[in-house]
């Protein structure tokens, strides 16, 4: 086995982001037989069987006490307990909160190489070279391992998911991890009071970021949103953290994932955490004073202006077009 795929699973199913990580793992390993899925915790057996049957990739169900609810402490230990004696060359996982803890923990333990948020890769002279965002998205960074194993988290949406293969059932095995008592206890989940449901249902979103400059900018967003059908106002982490918009209107990794027909990003720099939440939008307009803002890399139309100047002009232009 050359590449191990770690993925969270729910009711026997692995997320799309997990299958995208598997897509990269397959590209690195070469063949499906050289890859394996590792599934941990409740439902690991069901998920392992499902994956082996659907994708023709061997799957290992890792069982043990304390693996559900998942904690990075227990999962990292369990993975190393089972695979650490003969580690594969590559470990790949989706860039989720849990996996963004586990993969670097494993890399430190193994003395391995870690790259997070991998968006692309190519074969270099001395092995694979990975591409990821840096400096608030203003640069892409090429990073390459000098050592093995290589631990990767994969940016959701960056790679094609692993495709199913018919009639290529692969082996399912079971492994047991022996874990010492955990110093981490999961004490519950909660959702913010308002969910991002209204954002998910909107056909048009007008979103603001730090460039709003204050709560008064929000009023402009509302007026602009009124130009578009089934619209709502959304925000970036910066605008929500500043308290100009409620946390429930946050779009991005730790907020809502949206795919409206129109997404208008105003005064948003476009860090990948935000882009991850809106890359599925139909048509994207970006308004930002900084022509180098990474948001323009994810926009169909770009306007280099201060939103406080531009939005009133847009409202005026709309008024002239009855």
């Amino acid at each position: 086995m050359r590449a191990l795929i770690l993925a969270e699973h729910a009711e026997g199913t692995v997320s799309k982001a997990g299958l995208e990580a598997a897509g990269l793992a397959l590209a690195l390993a070469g063949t499906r037989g050289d890859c394996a899925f590792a599934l941990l915790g409740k439902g690991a057996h069901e998920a392992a069987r499902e994956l082996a049957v659907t994708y023709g990739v061997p799957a290992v169900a890792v069982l043990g006490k304390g693996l559900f609810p998942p904690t990075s402490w227990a999962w990292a230990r369990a993975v190393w307990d089972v695979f650490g004696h003969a580690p594969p060359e590559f470990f790949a996982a989706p860039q989720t909160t849990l996996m963004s803890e586990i993969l670097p923990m494993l890399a430190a333990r193994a003395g391995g190489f870690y790259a997070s948020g991998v968006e692309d890769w190519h074969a270099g002279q001395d092995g694979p070279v990975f591409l990821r965002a840096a400096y608030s998205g203003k640069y892409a960074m090429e990073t390459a391992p000098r050592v093995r194993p290589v631990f990767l988290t994969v940016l959701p949406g960056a790679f094609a998911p692993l495709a199913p293969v018919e009639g290529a059932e692969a082996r399912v095995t079971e492994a047991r991890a022996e874990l010492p008592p955990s110093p981490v206890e999961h004490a519950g989940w909660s959702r913010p009071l308002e969910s991002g449901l209204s954002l998910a249902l909107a056909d048009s979103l007008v979103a603001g970021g730090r460039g709003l400059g204050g709560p008064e900018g929000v009023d402009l967003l509302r007026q602009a949103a009124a130009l578009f059908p089934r619209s709502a106002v959304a925000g970036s982490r910066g605008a929500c953290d500043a308290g100009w918009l409620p946390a429930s209107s946050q779009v991005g990794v730790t907020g809502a994932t949206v795919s409206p027909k129109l997404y208008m990003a105003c005064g948003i720099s476009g860090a990948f955490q935000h882009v991850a939440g809106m890359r599925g939008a139909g048509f994207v307009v970006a308004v930002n004073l900084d022509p180098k803002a990474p948001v323009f890399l994810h926009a169909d139309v770009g306007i280099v202006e201060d939103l406080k100047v531009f939005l009133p002009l847009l409202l005026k232009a709309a008024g002239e077009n009855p």
Partner: protein
Amino acid sequence: MNIRVCVKQVPDMEGALGINPETGLAANLAGQERMDRASAHALEEALILKDQDRGHTITALTLGPPSHEPVLRRALAMGADRAVHLLTEDAPRDHLAMARALASALQAQTPDLVLCGAMSEDLMAGATGPMLAALLDVPFASGVVELRASGDTVEVVREVEGGARETLLLQLPAVLGIQSQARQPRYPTLTHMLRAGRQTIGTVSIPALETAGLPPRLKEPLQGRAVRFLTGAPEEKARDLFAILQGKGLVCAR
């Protein structure tokens, strides 16, 4: 409680950036550098703990070249009690090397709580916290937006995907990655600034460490869509944009 906060100096990313040919890293073209935002939030959380219990001691820790001393002066001016500079020749960029250097400095006297930013603005990897925790063999949680310390445990609320939150209880010692949030990091006070100016900063020389990666190379970022920039006077751009949106049927019919 003995609290260590890892703080990092980064180029000011609001200004124009260029690539420094010597280090291969990005630099603010005007030489402006500042405390990483995530670091500032981590320090703020430590200061809030200290506001509640004056018995805590906060030590700010940075790993970097001598030119990164200002980030420690800033931390002292914000209210950290002490500062330690782990001196390297260049700005560090290899995650494993950085975590090993920090771990060796912390192992001498294991603190009760280590706070880091969840993800720095420059390398954007979020690797230091979890690697440090693994090397110190202590629990870790990232994306932390609330924390309460009591006795030998810390209760944290952290953000996970899709706006959900998870509550975790971690036994101390522990490492936490602090997420930026509604609480804004405080500004330096005059008293602290005066003290910060005079205070001695402890230094530890860090030998060149073996890296797990080859030196990274910066490139133009990947383009997701082919953007078309509108040109002309602002009024013209506004009219053009409205016409484009109208043409695509994205505007309210009236």
